[in-house]
């Protein structure tokens, strides 16, 4: 660069330049972390409120949608016809063979039993978020709803890109890759659940 610095000892000169460059780069990287990390969920979001829900008022064949962590959760009191329809499905027919239930081991299969908690097969609780691109599927709709007197019951259909879920919330047709996930929840009494 310039003639004035050439007469200094080359190795020592290089060492201090390189060392300073490394220390500066490391410091800059560390200083960037707070600016990146501030976009992660903050303490108030992480301390997520869990939601408690009384299932008793939900009549058979009725479903409600509640909000948990900003997302809709479907809570459905299934009819016997819906449960039977779900149980009749062979595992080979499923697009996604895994249970996708946060309350059972990850490798468990998507049987109807593994889609509910505590053996209470009447109550299906799952995220109302299509696993394709996140729209909210419409209930009592789709090609895999149970048919009672020619009326669709159970089953979900996502209007955005045409994904069909069956009466256990499993993906059967369309672009969605996975079954609707079941969130962490437990029964705190016979008819009361706590999500989260």
């Amino acid at each position: 660069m310039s003639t004035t610095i050439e007469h200094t000892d080359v190795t020592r000169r290089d060492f201090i330049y390189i060392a300073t460059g490394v220390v500066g780069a490391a410091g800059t990287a560390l200083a960037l972390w707070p600016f990146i990390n501030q976009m992660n969920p903050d303490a108030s979001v992480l301390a997520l409120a869990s939601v408690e829900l009384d299932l008793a008022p939900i009549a058979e064949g009725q479903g409600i949608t509640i909000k948990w962590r900003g997302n809709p959760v479907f809570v459905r009191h299934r009819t016997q016809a819906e449960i039977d329809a779900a149980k009749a499905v062979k595992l080979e027919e499923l697009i996604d063979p895994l249970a996708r239930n946060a309350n059972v081991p990850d490798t468990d299969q998507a049987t109807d039993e593994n889609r509910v908690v505590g053996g209470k097969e009447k109550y299906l609780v799952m995220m109302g978020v299509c696993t394709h691109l996140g729209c909210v599927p419409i209930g009592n709709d789709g090609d895999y709803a149970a048919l009672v007197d020619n009326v669709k019951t159970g089953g979900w259909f996502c209007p955005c890109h045409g994904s069909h879920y069956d009466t256990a919330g499993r993906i059967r047709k369309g672009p969605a890759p996975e079954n609707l996930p079941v969130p962490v929840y437990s029964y705190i009494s016979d008819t009361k659940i706590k999500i989260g």
Partner: protein
Amino acid sequence: MRNIFIIASVAFAALTGAAQAEGVLPAKDISFSFEGPMGTFDRGQLQRGYKVYKEVCANCHAMNLVSFRNLSDKGGPEFTPEQVKALAATFTVKDGPNEAGEMFERPGLPTDRFPSPFANDEAAKSANGGALPPDLSLITKARPGWYGTINQFFNGIGGPQYVYSVLTGYEEPDEEMAKLQPPGKSLNHYFSAGPWIGMPAPLSDDVVTYDDGTKATVDQMARDVSAFMAWTAEPKMEERKHLGFMTLLYLAVFTLMLYLVKKKIWHGVPH
């Protein structure tokens, strides 16, 4: 050139001055464990202070910016999460609306903020003779115990000392003062808008029973609750000092290295 530094630093120090009101005493300069660049909170003291807040102050004062979950945060009283659950449940929190569209009351959860003891400011005023008990979340940062820019530079603003001094500063008015005493007010020369204060002396010996066996004198409780409010106002203080130490250490080393680089580059160059 040195002169300019002296002038500038004195100017700098004095430029944020403010005056203490007449008839108000500067706070008593008691010392706390969290003072100084390395000071940390005393967990036991914060836990005791919480108890004083809960059993005495919380009857009238809200602490809206603090959640129960914060009580188990690192750098605070560090109760266990189980203790926090139990502590939260001793408060009643308004929630709702439920399915019937009505508000209801339930025990507090760790994610709740400390509830206000009154429905609104107007209710708080009418229950306290027209005086609004301030929210205590930030009180030790909002109320200086003393003034003087150079004084504050070296000793801080004395916020915790202010709380301590108000709590221990109640006096019986003498005959002459008693004539001036407004109804329902007490005499306290440390109160920032004093000397008459709407809050009657809140502490008396053994008004709380400490779990760790510490004797609950007025002085002890005042110290503990002041420390607790220092934490509620600046919950990240320990993290800040710790990160500050690392940052300054790094910067000192890096500055020195850059100085050597600069010296090397300029070596033999007349300038």
